[in-house]
């Protein structure tokens, strides 16, 4: 049962033990798959008959775009976990996913721009797809800023969860913007009801890169969660030490007997 599995991980110690075992394997696997993807993308796949060599930018741009959306989806699920199910690790997951999602969104924007200049003749156009991805990036930045603005992790988690869920409205806009509006950006060519329109010689490098980068993102996410758990542990221990120090410095109340003797 996935639900019971998630609740099994509610105990941070159990999560730390499990993630410590999984993390090196995931890191190694993501490195191997990404290396294989890079080989396929740069050396094995052909140039496009129209785009030429610039098609190779797609092997980074498309997985980065998918991950930008996927990590936001993870954050939204975590936000539900915080607000609805009160899963103890939900906000840890949300906080760890935000910088990774922001980085992949930035990579998507940069590589898209680098593809756009030779293909469209411009670095940027304010069309629906590009603008909605820029909005996604700004939402990510807003979430990161909100985490930093509120000191108490519990309060910050609730505020960020609400902002994340409000921002989720942008996700279908990003996905369907090319269908809803007349955009310069081409419509979906891989995730379509009637199948991918890309040749297999280019589809396999794309999928391999996507799997490799997804594994990398999950590895980084897990590592980020571990760091956040340790950070909270350190913070609580510091607060506890400060409490103890204050307790020690507090003067002891005088007893009635000794007060009487003193006054006599």
């Amino acid at each position, binding site marked *: 049962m996935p639900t019971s599995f998630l*609740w099994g991980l*509610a*105990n*941070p*110690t159990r*999560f*730390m*033990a499990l993630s*410590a075992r999984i993390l*090196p394997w995931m890191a190694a696997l993501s490195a191997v798959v990404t290396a294989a993807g890079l080989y396929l993308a*740069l*050396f*094995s796949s052909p*140039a496009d008959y129209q785009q*030429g*060599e*610039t098609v*190779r*930018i797609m092997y*980074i*741009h498309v997985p980065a775009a998918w991950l930008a959306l996927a990590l936001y989806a993870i954050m939204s699920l975590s936000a539900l976990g915080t607000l609805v199910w*009160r*899963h*103890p690790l939900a*906000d*840890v997951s949300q906080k760890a996913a935000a*910088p*990774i999602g922001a*980085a*992949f969104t*930035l*990579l998507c924007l*940069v*590589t898209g721009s*680098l*593809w756009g200049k*030779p293909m469209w003749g411009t670095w940027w156009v304010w069309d629906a797809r590009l603008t909605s991805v820029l909005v996604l990036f700004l939402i990510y930045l807003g979430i990161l800023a909100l985490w930093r603005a509120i000191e*108490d*992790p*519990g309060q910050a988690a609730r505020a960020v969860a609400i902002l994340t869920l409000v921002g989720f409205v942008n996700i279908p806009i990003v996905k369907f913007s090319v269908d809803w509006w007349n955009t310069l950006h081409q419509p979906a060519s891989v995730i379509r009801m009637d199948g991918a329109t890309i040749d297999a010689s280019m589809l396999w490098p794309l999928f391999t890169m996507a799997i490799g980068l997804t594994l*990398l993102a999950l590895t*980084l996410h897990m*590592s*980020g969660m*571990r*760091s956040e*758990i*340790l*950070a*909270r*542990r*350190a*913070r*609580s*221990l*510091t*607060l*506890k*030490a400060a*409490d103890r120090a204050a307790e020690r410095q507090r003067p002891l109340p005088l007893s009635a007997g000794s007060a009487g003797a003193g006054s006599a």
Partner: protein
Amino acid sequence: MIALDSPHIGFVLAAYMAAAIVIAGLVLRAVIDSRMRNRALDILAARGVARHRVPSSGHPEGASAVRTISDGRDTVGSESSAQGAGYAGRGEGEEGGTARSHDDGRSDRR
């Protein structure tokens, strides 16, 4: 195979360079962050606040489940304080976590 004499090769190389920088930055950040957190906990342990890192069997230190030895009592970090790590920031209870007992593992964080 990529043709290095292509007219737009500069854009392709720049895109892969950007990807390398972003990914290297993410990995570096994760490694530095993890080391900093462990060092902070080690400093607290050295001050005798509460925690000594004890690698659980079969796992290297740093990547281990963290046991906590607190005030002479051997409490597994956050095991007894169920949400100790997750909500340690609340500063409540054993190891700073929410020390309320959560039989079902849920956290009442209000």
